[in-house]
């Protein structure tokens, strides 16, 4: 690979600072007592403790999945701390009571809170290590009946809703990491959009892992009642450590009749250094249930960070005429590994799904798309369109595609297109011959390649994603 390409991919990680803040950390290790400790710290009701213990019991019997196309040493689950919270003296009533050091951290990260949130028109929930520290705009949202708060709070304030839906899309024993999350999840976001309400602003959560040797296990639950709609965004960062941190989240979405949930992620966890040291293991289960007729669930993700990403935001299309969408850009550089994609399970009649996946690999990285399209016998008239494109930068990286297609209904229509391209010396020379330097050329080529996905993102996120990709790939072209 030429020197320009190399230079272009290697931009320092700018979120790699640690905040000096007093934390309440649980002893390392996982056992029933730790789970009880987490549950009691959070003053949880008995049913939730049972939920956790049931998950833990299942987890003990399960094996770590080995099928993803990623390699890493065996994780010692006993060396992880399962609870880390910034110490605070009392429950916070307003943003003004939040530790100023924390606020400064989020300012550094560019998280819009306070008036900045007002200007941006985005309601934000912020999760620091394991605990939700601030939710903006709660009052205003409550006026239209929208519940937007941390999941711990929802457990106390809206226990019936949480109890009704938690674990219904991703059951406690769904997979190894989902079971682990169900046992030890600490916080996350809860969102309920009532019947007929179109959420007046984008909702956002920012996640931050701050403590070395702690895991982050957040749990997000979003319910769109009949005829409602919401656009939800999440952003993730973490400091630089030489060790690996585990992030095993579960996200569940439920869309009832005519409901529309759009979920966008810009994931920029620390990816490790240029030799593959450190970085986040991002093992995440995200699934949406398009339960009602004409409901729609749309996932958009820009995955640039993490040492390893293992994640398949999926849609179960149960309601008639329901729609599932997955738009993804996954970028890997240096020694990053990503095995990501989606599952579209068509159950209802005339269900439709679209998959657009763009993988970009640079350095020594490996980037795999893995996707399942399943058409059940009941899904008459179902349609799927999948498009998987890979782009290679340099000659030491890999791009892989693993599409699984299972069609059990004669009247379904499934289309799959795939392509692999390479940013070539000749393309860069062509740009140069028109006066355009290689950095700008690469950024243009990549943005062109990702255009179909970026245009699905809300405006601010699209700008951020474009910048992020530029940073990410800086120095990778020679």
């Amino acid at each position: 690979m030429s020197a320009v390409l190399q230079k272009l991919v290697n931009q320092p990680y700018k979120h790699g600072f640690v905040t000096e803040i007093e934390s309440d950390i649980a002893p390392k290790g996982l056992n029933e007592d730790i789970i009880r400790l987490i549950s009691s710290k959070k003053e949880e009701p008995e049913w939730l403790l049972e939920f956790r213990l049931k998950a833990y019991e299942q987890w003990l019997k399960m094996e770590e999945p080995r099928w993803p196309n990623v390699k890493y040493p065996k994780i010692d689950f006993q060396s992880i701390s399962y609870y880390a919270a910034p110490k605070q003296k009392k429950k916070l009533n307003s943003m003004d009571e939040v530790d100023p050091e924390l606020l400064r951290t989020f300012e550094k990260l560019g998280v819009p809170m306070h008036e900045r949130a007002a200007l941006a028109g985005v309601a934000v929930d912020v999760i620091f290590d394991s605990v939700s520290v601030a939710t903006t705009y709660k009052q205003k949202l409550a006026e239209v009946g929208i519940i937007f708060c941390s999941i711990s709070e929802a457990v106390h304030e809206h226990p019936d809703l949480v109890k009704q839906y938690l674990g219904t899309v991703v059951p406690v024993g769904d997979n190894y990491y989902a079971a682990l999350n169900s046992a030890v999840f600490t916080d996350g976001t809860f969102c309920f959009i009532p019947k007929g309400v179109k959420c007046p602003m984008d909702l956002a959560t920012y996640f931050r892992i701050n403590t070395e040797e702690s895991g982050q296990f957040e749990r997000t639950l979003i319910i769109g009642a009949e005829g409602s709609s919401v656009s939800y965004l999440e952003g993730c960062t973490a400091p630089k450590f030489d060790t690996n941190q585990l992030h095993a989240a579960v996200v569940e979405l439920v869309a009832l009749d005519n409901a529309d949930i759009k979920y966008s992620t810009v994931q920029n966890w620390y990816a490790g250094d240029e030799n593959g040291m450190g970085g986040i293991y991002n093992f995440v289960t995200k699934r949406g249930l398009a339960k009602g007729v004409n409901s729609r669930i749309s996932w958009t993700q820009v995955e640039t960070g993490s040492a390893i990403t293992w994640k398949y935001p999926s849609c179960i299309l149960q309601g008639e005429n329901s729609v599932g969408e997955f738009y993804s850009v996954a970028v890997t550089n240096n020694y990053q590994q990503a095995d990501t994609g989606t599952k579209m399970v068509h159950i209802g009649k005339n269900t439709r799904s679209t998959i657009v996946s763009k993988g970009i690999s640079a350095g020594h990285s490996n980037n795999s798309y893995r996707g399942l399209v399943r058409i059940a016998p009941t899904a008459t008239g179902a349609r799927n369109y999948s498009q998987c494109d890979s782009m290679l930068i340099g000659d030491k990286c890999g791009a892989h595609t693993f599409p699984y297609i299972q069609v059990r209904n004669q009247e379904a229509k499934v289309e799959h297109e795939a392509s692999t391209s390479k940013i070539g010396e000749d393309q860069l020379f062509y740009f140069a011959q028109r006066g355009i330097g290689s950095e700008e050329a690469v950024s243009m080529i990549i943005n062109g390649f990702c255009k179909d996905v970026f245009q699905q993102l809300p405006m601010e996120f699209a700008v951020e994603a474009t910048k992020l990709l530029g940073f990410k790939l800086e120095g990778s072209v020679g």
Partner: protein
Amino acid sequence: MIYQDSKTLLEIRGLRATVNGIEILKGIDLTVKFGEVHAIMGTNGSGKSTLAKVLAGHDAYQVTGGSVAFEGNDLFDLKPEERARAGVFLAFQYPVEIPGVANSHFLRLAYNTVQAQRGKDELDPLEFDDLVREKMKLLDMNPDFLDRGVNEGFSGGEKKRNEILQMALLEPRLAILDETDSGLDIDALRIVTKGVNRLANKDNAIILVTHYQRLLNYIVPDYVHVMEAGRIIKTGDKELALDLENRGYDWVGAEQRAAVEA
């Protein structure tokens, strides 16, 4: 056109270059003055296209000897993009496709980069749109091509027109057209060459790299150079091109060898 007292734009002296360790250019001498049109002809593998790419700065070619002065400055001090900004333009024989990058975006960025270098105003998308549409009329191009990816799915003829459109926008000092006639039908050839002729003036110069005399019926050269095995072995006027058309290339080489032996 040859102008009296015209200054030298490009001065090539003893230029040698290799690709993958194999010497392709074995000592090229060529002087191009403002206003002139030079045709470089020769058989496949004679080194014509290599000369074009070496001048533009393609990094697959290593310069192993000689010098090139562009407006009195050492061309090899400049990176490829700096040469382009200084006014060296190469119309590619095989323009690459850049999927997903809109032509309009690409053209504007190239235009503004070169404008900035010349200390002139950059154009916003609307202003640029007016300019580019006007230039496209010159080349009889369909406006919908602005929204397509750079050369993406273009026919051979469309790609060549796009090259000349870029030449029209960037207004280079030195335009090197590498086999611009290949792949063009007679109508397209007429349109493209008409475009080139309108761009030629006393403040620039053109080097046409071509295999066939056909192109030179449309763009009349002041000088014709014949290349063989990495050297210019004969220089003449436009009549030489006609001779080549009638008699082929062999006699030039034979004549030159006879001259050397004599």
